């Protein structure tokens, strides 16, 4: 049976039975969301790589120790670990974390580009860099909800519980985040068209 058809829980069981491919598939499946979540917090690719590594080492150790709660979802659990490691890093560096939440949350499919020429690739990469920069400009509580929902796969109910607000407030923050991103993208496009 192809690995991609197995659930996260099945892959974990497979890994704990000694099949490294289970872990490999879990990483492959979730690496982009986890890495992007970390990067949006630390804004440094090398640091994000280190924290990503440490995150999965902790995942491996916890799974092997039998301490993973099977009732929880895998991706939010991993992102919680990642977020706690980010906070630990900032504490050590005596810096304020970009996002402070009560529980550890924050957070991040690759587009396959066929026949892309160099100019198209530059434009695509610039667009992706731009949207990440725009996310960084969002108010913290909006950025927090956006990262938790879009990259962390948490429901709005879960986000509301963690951040101790109502579901409507969590939804509203996400809506404001999307509206602000829309506005910033329109302003950026106007600047580009005006030749700035």
């Amino acid at each position, binding site marked *: 049976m192809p690995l991609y058809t197995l659930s996260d829980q099945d892959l974990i069981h497979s890994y704990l039975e000694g099949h490294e491919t289970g872990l490999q598939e879990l990483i492959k499946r979730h690496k982009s969301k986890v890495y992007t979540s970390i990067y949006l917090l630390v804004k440094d690719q090398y640091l994000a790589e280190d924290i*990503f590594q440490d995150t999965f080492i902790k995942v491996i150790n916890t799974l092997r120790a039998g301490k993973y709660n099977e009732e929880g979802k895998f991706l939010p659990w991993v992102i919680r670990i990642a977020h706690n490691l980010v906070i630990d890093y900032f504490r050590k560096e005596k810096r304020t974390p970009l996002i402070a939440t009560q529980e550890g949350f924050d957070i991040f499919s690759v587009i396959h580009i066929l026949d892309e020429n160099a100019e198209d690739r530059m434009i695509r990469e610039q667009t992706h860099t731009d949207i990440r920069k725009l996310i960084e400009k969002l108010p913290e509580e909006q950025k927090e909800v956006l990262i938790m929902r879009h990259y962390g796969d948490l429901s709005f109910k879960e986000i509301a519980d963690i951040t101790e607000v109502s579901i409507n407030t969590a939804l509203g923050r996400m809506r404001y985040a999307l509206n602000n991103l829309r506005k910033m993208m329109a302003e950026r496009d106007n600047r580009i068209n005006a030749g700035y």
Partner: protein
Amino acid sequence: MTQTFTQNDLVRHLYTEESKQEADNLNSCLALDEELKENFNDYRFITDQLTSSMMSPTADTINYIMEYSRITA
């Protein structure tokens, strides 16, 4: 009776956090309400951008993790 939907409902719809009935009702409404549809399409465009702008760690990082798993097994 015509059901009205809020902007928050659009956000829930974006992430499919609603019942099938609610989803069907909202889809019917989107088909008839141009302004609502435009708002929803804008949100969809942005979330598509969020998805497409995701980054990945390097192969070296992943290899390190797998090597750790192997040598500590």
